[in-house]
């Protein structure tokens, strides 16, 4: 197992280097002069020369790549051209929003998708099955941004002045300011230090933070703001997970050992949960892992519709503004996260199915 894990991690290295190369090439091939993009069309050649020198853009491309690799190895992603701030700091500010949104969407998708899939398979061709599969088919075919806009129309306008009203944008209502949990705990953190950014990272996840500080009004407000975006973001993964669970369960329920389990008089729910579901879990896990990439891509659209200052929206803005350092850093982080998620899925196979020996 350990050996397999190490080998699997080593296999990821060429892919990671590939990711770095692709991101670097893409960021450098974005047409247009970053100097003019940042300082305006009227920037003189002299000003631009100084700007390029400061940003290291005057060095040959291979040298730039080498510097870039060395910096990344140290966790330094450089400074944003547009904001003149370290990219790592911006990343720490933006990631919590996306992680919170993505995690809640994923949890929703798993908690609703799997039971729906199991019930559909067990009650095959029943009305529940037909309706679930209809919803799942429609769900995977829906543009995320369209669903998001429609949800905000229904919940923010049609249900205006009713208890069902939900906020269509932002993370908190204006005026509600959460206390960072570390301040409430009396932990000292000097602004600018690693400790500060580390603690700030977690306190920027408002749900987690308000649970820790027991500010229930903040929790309620933050949760209400997250309902629509996470619902929109979870639809496609939910549909895919429900479909996969159903077909995987159907496959398993046909097996002889299920008949044996029933024949020996086991209660039906035990047969379904212990004998069928556990064996159907493998393809479901794979598909859940694959959804992570989809969630990140969906975050670009969801965040821009619901006015959330997350990684996805930032990346999109940075690409259009030719802010190389942000594009590079954010793409690398997303791609590495994706590779890591798939690695975890691969390793979890042995845990889910002990027959799989990873060697």
């Amino acid at each position, binding site marked *: 197992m350990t050996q397999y894990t190490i080998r699997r991690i080593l296999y990821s290295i*060429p*892919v990671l280097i*590939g*990711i770095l*190369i*692709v991101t670097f090439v*893409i960021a450098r*091939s*974005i*047409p247009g002069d970053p100097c003019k993009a940042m300082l305006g069309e009227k920037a003189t050649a002299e000003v631009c020369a100084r700007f390029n020198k400061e940003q290291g853009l005057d060095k040959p491309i291979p040298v730039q790549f080498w510097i870039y690799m060395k910096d990344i190895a140290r966790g330094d992603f450089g400074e944003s051209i547009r904001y003149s701030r370290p990219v790592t700091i911006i990343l720490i500010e933006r990631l919590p929003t996306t992680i919170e949104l993505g995690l809640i969407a994923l949890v929703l998708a798993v908690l609703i998708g799997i039971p729906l899939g199991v019930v559909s398979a067990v009650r095959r061709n029943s009305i529940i099955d037909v309706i679930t599969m209809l919803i799942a*088919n*429609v769900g*995977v*075919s*829906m*543009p*995320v*941004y*369209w*669903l998001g*806009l*429609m949800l*905000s*129309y229904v919940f*923010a*306008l049609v249900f205006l002045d009713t208890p069902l009203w939900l906020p269509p944008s932002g993370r908190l209502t204006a005026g509600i300011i959460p206390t960072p949990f570390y301040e409430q705990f009396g932990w000292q953190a000097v602004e600018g230090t690693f400790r500060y950014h580390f603690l700030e990272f977690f306190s920027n996840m408002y749900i987690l933070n308000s649970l820790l500080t027991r500010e229930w009004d903040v929790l309620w407000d933050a949760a209400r703001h997250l309902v629509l975006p996470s619902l929109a973001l979870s639809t496609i993964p939910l549909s895919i997970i429900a479909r996969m669970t159903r*077909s995987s369960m*159907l496959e398993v329920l046909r097996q002889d050992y299920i008949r044996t389990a029933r024949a020996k008089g086991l209660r039906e729910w035990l047969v379904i949960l212990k004998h069928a579901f556990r064996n159907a879990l493998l393809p479901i896990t794979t598909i859940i892992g694959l959804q992570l*990439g*989809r969630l*990140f*891509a*969906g975050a*670009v*659209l969801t965040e*821009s*519709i619901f006015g959330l200052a997350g990684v996805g929206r930032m*990346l*999109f803005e940075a*690409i*259009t503004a030719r802010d190389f350092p942000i*594009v590079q850093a954010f*793409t690398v982080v*997303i*791609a590495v996260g*994706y*590779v890591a998620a798939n690695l975890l899925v691969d390793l979890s196979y042995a845990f889910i199915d002990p027959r799989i020996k990873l060697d």
Partner: protein
Amino acid sequence: MSTELNELQQKTQRDYRSNSLFWVTLRSIVRQRSAIIGGSILIFLVLVAIFAPVIAPYDPEEVLIGKEDIRKRESPCIHLLGCPEDQPQHILGVDGNVRDVFSRVIFGTRVSLFIGFSTVGFAIIVGTLLGAIGGYVGGWVDNLIMRVMDVLLAFPSLLLAIAIVTVLGRGLQNALLAIAIVSIPRYARVIRGSVLSIKEQEFVSASRALGGGNLHILFRRILPNAIPPLIVQGTLGIGAAILEAAALSFLGLGAQPPTPEWGTMLGSERNQVFTAPHLVFYPGLAIMITVLAFNLLGDGLRDAIDPRLKE
């Protein structure tokens, strides 16, 4: 006697024909409910695309200011449903530039179907070549090709497409190219897998023993047998490509106005969702129905072609 023999011969021939792979597959496709529904919607959409100029009451890019007494973002007006006869009929309303939304949605069918077929067609051709070469040749060539594919797959496809479009420049053509590039790995993997298993089969050895060259074996013996899973992937891929192209257009990177593209229509009116929801609702519905058609057809095809998955 001879007539009987003739009849028998004809019957055998008929049986042979009706039992060929094509007919067996077609019969089992027809038996699949989802394939029938998906296929029917698709035929309907193709007809809409072909007869768009006949169906649409207006030119999709025609601005109606000064031609009709109508304000911008006017709600739908259908005479049959009680809209006053003296008002011009716009069954899905008019948009922010005073253009007939129904005509634009109808013409959008052409754009979307074109997007779906062209991107997937391109991706399949390139993906097949790469996957087939990798699978057949093996060794470092295979390794190199598949590692590049792994890297491409390591990016969420929409993000990579956004980045590629930014490099190439905005516009429908570049968006199509970006989506095609992003979907190549999917087909390369499918084909490589099939080629790997087929190349070990006896008929391939037989062909080699008969003196068949590598190109002949790969393109005439192996690839035709590797096509079925590709059809399924391709059909499902068209749905995905249409969704992604619409997303790019929605973000302003794909088709540019005034092209009647559904994603562009949605994107340019997204801020009006509270005041004129019909401008957002109908283009999105059109995207959903089209993607649904391809997904249903793809699912049905998979069940029909891969008997192992038949329920």
